[in-house]
C-alpha cells in the first residue's frame, strides 16, 4: 500500500497534469496572421550590412539568417547562449585563431538558389572590403579587422582564420548586424530587393510608407515561421504611432520608441498591453576636441567632466530609469560594466556633485576664469530631439563652472562631416553598440584607425590592451582587463559617458513569443518564433 506521502504526491501530480494540459494547449502556437509593427522612420535601404541603426535591423532581420544567433529565450544576449542558424555546429582550433563552422544543408535563398559555404566567404570578403561585391558603406569593417582569411572546405564547411585568438568573433557573428548575403546578388540589389534565407521573403518597400514581408514557405526550420507575414507601416510622428498602437492599428510599437513618460500614457489608455522598458546600449556622451583651444588644456577637459551631474541627466531624460556607467553597459543588464566601487573613483562619477564642481571651478580659476571672466563656446549637437535635450542640460551644467555654452544645432547631413573636420569644441553625441561586448565597443569607437572613432582619440598602448583582453578566454580575468581599459578611457576623457539610455517597446497581448533583450536592441527581430493569439 502506498504511504500517505506518496499518495499525496501522486494526487498532486494528477492535479498538476489536469491543469497543465489545458495551459499547454492554450499556449500552443497558432499559425497565420499578419503581424503589424510600427516602423519609426524610413530606413532608406534594406541592406543591414550598410546600415548602423535599428531602423534598418528591425524591419529586415526577418529576411535573413546568420551563421549563429543569440538565444532569444534569454532576457540577455549572452556569449554562452548562442544557438545555431545557418551553421549547425562550430569549433575552435587549439590556438583559438581559427573558427570552423559546419553549415546546414538543404537551405535555399529566397530565389531558390542553394546556400553554400561560398556565400559565407563572399559575405566576409565583402565585409572586409575584398572580393568583387562591394558595400557602398561599410560601418562594421572594424568588427572583422582580425579575420585574415576565410577558407571553404566543400560546400558545407567554412573556417575564419584570425590574427589573434578572438572568442568574441562568435558574438559578432551572432549579432543582428551579421546576416549572410548571397554571392549571386549584388550589394546594390540587396539595398532594394534583398534576398535572404530567412523566415520571411521581401515583398515590397514603399519609401516613407510601408514595408511588407511574407512567409517563406521553404524556410529550413520546420513549422516556422508561424506568421503569414509582417507589415511595418512607417509612422514617423510619435504621437500618431502611439495612438495607432492604442487603437489596435499596429500590434507592436517600434522597438525602444516608447519613452518613460509616454509609457505611462500608453498603459493608461491600453492597460492590457505588455510593455518592456530597458537599456538600449546607446550612451549619451561628450565628444571633446582636444586639438583645439580651450580643450587642448587637460585641466579644462577635467573641469568639464567634473561638472556633469549624471543623476540629473538620468532623472530629467529618463525619470531615473537610465543607468550610469562607463563605456560598457552597466550591470545588471550589461555583462562588462565596471562595479560602482571602481566607477565612483573616476573624476566626475562620484556622487558628491557639489564637491566635484568645487574642484572644477578651482581648475577653471587656475587658468584665469571666474565669475567675471567666463568662457564662451558653442556646444554642437545633431538636430534630433534625443541629442538636443541632453545638450541643453549640459549647457546648464557648464554654467556652474564659468562656461557659457551656446547650443549649435547641426543638421544630420552635416553632423559627421563637421565632426570629422574637427570643426567643434564640444559636442553632445550618442553612441550605439551592436552587441554587449568589449571588442565591438573598444575597436569600433576607440581604436586609432577605426572609421567610427569620431574624436580621433588614439592611445596605442591602450589599444594593445584591447587586443590582450580580446584574447582572454577566462571571463573573470577578461572583466578585470575590460574595467581597467574602461577606467583609463574615462580618465583620458576619450568620450565621457554621461548616461546609458533606456527605451520601451509595447505590444498587444495577442502577440506571443517576442522577447526583447535587456543588453542590446539590434538582435531580436527574426520573428520566426512569434505568433498571434487571435
Amino acid at each position, binding site marked *: 500500500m502506498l504511504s500517505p506521502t506518496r499518495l499525496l504526491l501522486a494526487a498532486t501530480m494528477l492535479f498538476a497534469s489536469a491543469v497543465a494540459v489545458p495551459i499547454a494547449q492554450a499556449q500552443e502556437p497558432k499559425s497565420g496572421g499578419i503581424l503589424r509593427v510600427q516602423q519609426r522612420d*524610413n530606413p*532608406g*535601404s534594406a541592406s543591414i550590412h*550598410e*546600415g*548602423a*541603426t535599428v531602423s534598418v535591423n528591425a524591419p529586415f532581420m526577418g529576411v535573413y539568417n546568420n551563421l549563429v544567433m543569440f538565444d532569444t529565450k534569454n532576457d540577455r544576449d549572452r556569449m554562452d547562449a548562442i544557438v545555431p542558424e545557418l551553421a549547425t555546429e562550430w569549433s575552435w582550433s587549439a590556438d583559438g585563431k581559427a573558427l570552423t563552422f559546419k553549415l546546414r544543408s538543404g537551405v535555399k535563398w529566397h530565389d531558390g538558389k542553394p546556400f553554400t559555404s561560398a556565400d559565407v566567404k563572399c559575405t566576409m570578403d565583402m565585409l572586409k572590403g575584398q572580393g568583387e561585391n562591394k558595400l*557602398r*558603406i*561599410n*560601418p562594421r569593417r572594424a568588427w572583422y579587422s582580425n579575420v585574415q582569411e576565410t577558407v571553404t572546405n566543400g560546400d558545407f564547411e567554412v573556417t575564419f582564420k584570425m590574427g589573434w585568438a578572438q572568442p568574441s568573433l562568435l558574438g559578432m557573428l551572432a549579432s543582428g548586424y551579421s546576416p549572410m548575403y548571397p554571392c549571386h546578388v549584388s550589394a*546594390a540589389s540587396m*539595398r*532594394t530587393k534583398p534576398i535572404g534565407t530567412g523566415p520571411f521573403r521581401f515583398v515590397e*518597400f*514603399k*519609401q*516613407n*510608407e*510601408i514595408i511588407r514581408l511574407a512567409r517563406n514557405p521553404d524556410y529550413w526550420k520546420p513549422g516556422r515561421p508561424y506568421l503569414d507575414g509582417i507589415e511595418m*507601416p*512607417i*509612422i*514617423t*510622428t510619435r*504621437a*500618431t504611432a502611439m*495612438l*495607432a498602437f*492604442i*487603437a*489596435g*492599428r499596429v500590434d507592436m510599437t517600434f522597438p525602444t520608441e516608447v519613452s518613460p513618460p509616454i509609457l505611462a500614457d500608453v498603459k493608461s*489608455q491600453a492597460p492590457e498591453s505588455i510593455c518592456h522598458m530597458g537599456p538600449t546600449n546607446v550612451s549619451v556622451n561628450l565628444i571633446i576636441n582636444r586639438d583645439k583651444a580651450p580643450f587642448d588644456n587637460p585641466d579644462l577637459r577635467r573641469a568639464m567632466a567634473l561638472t556633469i551631474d549624471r543623476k540629473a541627466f538620468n532623472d530629467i531624460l529618463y525619470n531615473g530609469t537610465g543607468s550610469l556607467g562607463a563605456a560598457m553597459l552597466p550591470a545588471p543588464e550589461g555583462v562588462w560594466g565596471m562595479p560602482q566601487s571602481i566607477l565612483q573613483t573616476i573624476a566626475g562619477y562620484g556622487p558628491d556633485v557639489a564637491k566635484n564642481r568645487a574642484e572644477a571651478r578651482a581648475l577653471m580659476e587656475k587658468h584665469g576664469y571666474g565669475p567675471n571672466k567666463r568662457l564662451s563656446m558653442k556646444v554642437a549637437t545633431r538636430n534630433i530631439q534625443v541629442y538636443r535635450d541632453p545638450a541643453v542640460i549640459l549647457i546648464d551644467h557648464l554654467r556652474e563652472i564659468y562656461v557659457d555654452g551656446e547650443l549649435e544645432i547641426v*543638421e*544630420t*547631413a*552635416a*553632423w*559627421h*562631416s563637421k*565632426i*570629422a573636420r574637427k570643426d567643434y569644441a564640444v559636442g553632445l553625441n550618442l*553612441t*550605439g553598440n551592436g552587441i554587449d561586448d568589449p571588442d565591438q565597443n573598444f575597436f569600433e569607437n576607440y581604436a586609432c584607425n577605426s*572609421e*567610427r572613432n*569620431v574624436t580621433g582619440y588614439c592611445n596605442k598602448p591602450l589599444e594593445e590592451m584591447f587586443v590582450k583582453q580580446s584574447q582572454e578566454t577566462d571571463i573573470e580575468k577578461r572583466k578585470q582587463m575590460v574595467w581597467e581599459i574602461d577606467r583609463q578611457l574615462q580618465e583620458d576623457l576619450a568620450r565621457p559617458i554621461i548616461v546609458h539610455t533606456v527605451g520601451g517597446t509595447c505590444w498587444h497581448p495577442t502577440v506571443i513569443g517576442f522577447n526583447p533583450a535587456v543588453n542590446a536592441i539590434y538582435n531580436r527581430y527574426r520573428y520566426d518564433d512569434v505568433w498571434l493569439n487571435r
Partner: protein
Amino acid sequence: MFLPWKSEARLGAYLVRRSALMLLTLFGISVIIFVLLRIVPGNIVDILFDTAGMIDPADKARIERDLGIDLPLPQQYFVWISGFFSGNLGYSYVSEKLVVAEIALRIPVTLKLAILALFFTVALGVPLGVISAVRQDTAIDYTLRVVSLSGLSLPSFWLALLILMAFVSWFGMIPIYTDTPDSIWDEILLLAVPAAAVGFRSSSLVMRLTRSAMLEVLRQDYIRTARAKGATRNSVNYRHALRNALLPVVTVLGIEAAFLIGGLIVTETVFNIPGVARFLVEAIRSRDYPIVQNLVMMIAVVVVLVNFAVDMLYATLDPRIKYTD
C-alpha cells in the same frame, strides 16, 4: 466693326506672351531650387555616412563620383534640366528607383486629398460666407465669424492630433492612411477626415473672403436697382451679387488648390498620408536632389498652370475682362 479673326489673333498673342512668361518663371524656379539645394550644407553621401556613424573620405569621393555630384555645378544643372525636358528624371538617391515612379506613386493620394479638401472648402466656405453676409450683424453672422476665426487660429498640427485622439477615445479607431482599405467607402472616410481638417482652415478663409466680397457687392448701385425692380432676394443674392463676389474667391481658391498639391506637410505627417508634401520634405532631409528638384518643378508647373486657368476663368466670370486687349 467687329473682326473676329483679329480678336483671335490678339488672344493668340496673349497666349504666346503668357506662355513665354510661364517658361521664364519655371526657369527661374529651376535655378533657385538647384542653387538652394547646393547651398544647404551636406549631401546624400553625408547622410549615408551619418547613418553609418562614420566617415571614409575615399568611399565618400567614390560615391559622389558615381552619383555625379562631384561635377561642376553648371554641368550638374545642365544634365538635370535637359533630362527634365526629355522626360528622363533620373533615379532617387535614396530608393534608387526611377524618380518618375516614385513621384507617380504619391500623386493619386495627394490628388484625392486635395480634391476632397477643396470640396469641403467650397461646400462650407462659400455658402456660409453668403449667409454671413446677408445676415450681417445677426447672431448667425457673429457665430460664423467666431467659427471662421477659430479655423484660422487653431494650429493645424494641434487640431489634427486632437481629431486623432477624439477618434481613438470615442470610436476606438484611428483614421490614418492605409494602402489596403477594405472598400472605396473606407478609403473615402480615411481621406475625408484629414481633408475635413484641412478644409476647416481653408473654408474659414474662403468664408471670410466671400462674406467681405458679398458685403461690398451688395452695396453696389445695380443691386439696389435689381431690388427696386422687384427681383427676389435669392435672385439678388445668388444671380447678381454672388457671381461678382466670387472673383476674389476664385483667386484664393486657385492659390489654395496649388498649395494643396505640395503644402500639406503637417496634415500628411500627422495622418500618416504618403503624399507629395511629406515625400518632398523627406527628400529634402535626405538631400535626394533628383526627387527634390523634379518634384519642385512639377509643383511649380501645376501652380503656374492653375494660376493661368484661374486667369482664364476670370474672363468667363466677368465679361468685362478681355485678354485680347
